[in-house]
């Protein structure tokens, strides 16, 4: 546990705050690109752990937390200073949902990250209207990836703790990489990830950092 590691590294002079984390439900009607209107009837994603990080360290010092390195698999982030662990299969259209209370050290924050799990698969289904023609779609994708670099610029103080942290998803952005004019190659009447490059483009949009937002709610 990263927070445990930080504890061992002498950061315990900072107060530990309990901050509720809520997923903010998304709307079913989105316009991912010009000329395309999408009405979702089903949208679900499995999220694993929510973490918030302090300012990135660039000084010459040893750090137990990975910093940017010249190799894929490493990103430039500060120490983890707040986290909510757990796994949630979110109904993205089901309204707001409390995920739990995150443990956060007081201090400055810069970024956050979540992970998406492949099992159960993420589902997006509904109808896309393109140039006046409505086509049903059902995309099932299996992300297995951290979403890093979520902007989370805030300062948490023990005397003015945030009232909460909200996690939200931009479904228009998530679906904006798909080519909605893809031909229904198997002629089954429904666009799926078997058609064209939709398997790649839908997954790409789902795991894109701008698709997800972590927001500190004012105290």
């Amino acid at each position, binding site marked *: 546990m990263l927070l445990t590691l930080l504890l061992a590294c002498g950061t315990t002079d900072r107060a530990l705050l309990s901050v509720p984390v809520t997923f903010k439900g998304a709307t079913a009607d989105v316009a991912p690109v010009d000329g395309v209107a999408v009405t979702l009837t089903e949208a679900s994603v499995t999220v694993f752990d929510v973490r918030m990080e302090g300012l990135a360290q660039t000084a*010459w010092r040893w750090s137990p937390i990975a910093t940017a390195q010249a*190799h894929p698999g490493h990103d430039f982030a500060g120490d983890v200073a707040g986290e909510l662990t757990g796994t949630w299969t979110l109904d993205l259209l089901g309204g707001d949902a409390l995920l739990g209370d995150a443990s956060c050290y007081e201090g400055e924050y810069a970024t956050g990250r979540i992970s998406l799990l492949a099992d159960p698969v993420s589902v997006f289904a509904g109808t896309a209207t393109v140039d006046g023609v409505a086509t049903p779609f059902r995309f099932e994708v299996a992300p297995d990836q951290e979403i890093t670099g979520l902007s989370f610029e805030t300062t948490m103080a023990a005397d003015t703790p945030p009232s909460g942290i909200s996690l939200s998803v931009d479904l228009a952005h998530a679906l904006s990489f798909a080519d909605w004019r893809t031909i229904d190659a198997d002629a089954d009447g429904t666009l799926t990830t078997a058609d064209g490059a939709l398997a790649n483009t839908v997954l790409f949009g789902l795991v894109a*950092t701008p698709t997800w937002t972590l927001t500190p709610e004012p105290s």
Partner: protein
Amino acid sequence: MTLFSLFLVGCANGTWTVNTWGEEYIEDTIPAEIFEDGCTVTYDSFEVAMSGVALLDGDGTEVGVVDGEQVFDLTAAGPHDVGSAEVPATHYANARYVIAPSDQLGGSSVVAAGTLTCGADAVTFDWAFDTDTTYACEPADLTIPAGGEDSTQYTIHGDHLFYDGLENEDAVVRGQAIADADADADGVVTLAELEAVPVATLGYQVGQYSEVTNLAQFVGFLTQTLGHVDGEGHCQVDL
């Protein structure tokens, strides 16, 4: 100052020598077993413009500098001497170098040319990049002895131009998407052709670098991951 103390000061320095190497992947070939899709790459040239070579103490202060810019074609047999500096004799954990645009390389920082072969498809490429990357490295075990020398190697990994992810740990090396980018089928893949390929369609991943939307940007970004130290040692980069 006594003669004895002068003697101690004189012996308190050693020599830090620096070389750079592109290893077999750049000098010879990147074999099919390295590529997830069985492609291979042979470089005809792989030039890097190196500068900012310095050894730093624990406070980040430069204690030894190799001045100037140098261009190395890493397809030539290496390692290649970069230079040396007299530095205080002690253990060091921090060294730095920069690969940045240079007039000596036509304003580029990295120029890579070669042949990518995927099955029956073979395409050539000749790409120039102007990325500016500072590598802050932790040498493997660098101790400069008094009156002696120790060395650091800045190692350049030529396979990194073909990774399919910018951030994910399970990124693998692929070539087919780049071979397929030869839109005019003339056997040459240009950066303009790579620019026409949306990275979202490929199954590639950009992580938090969402500004990377096409394959030319993607490969350009990967030029910032080429640099290592002492073989497989990693360096920090500020992306």
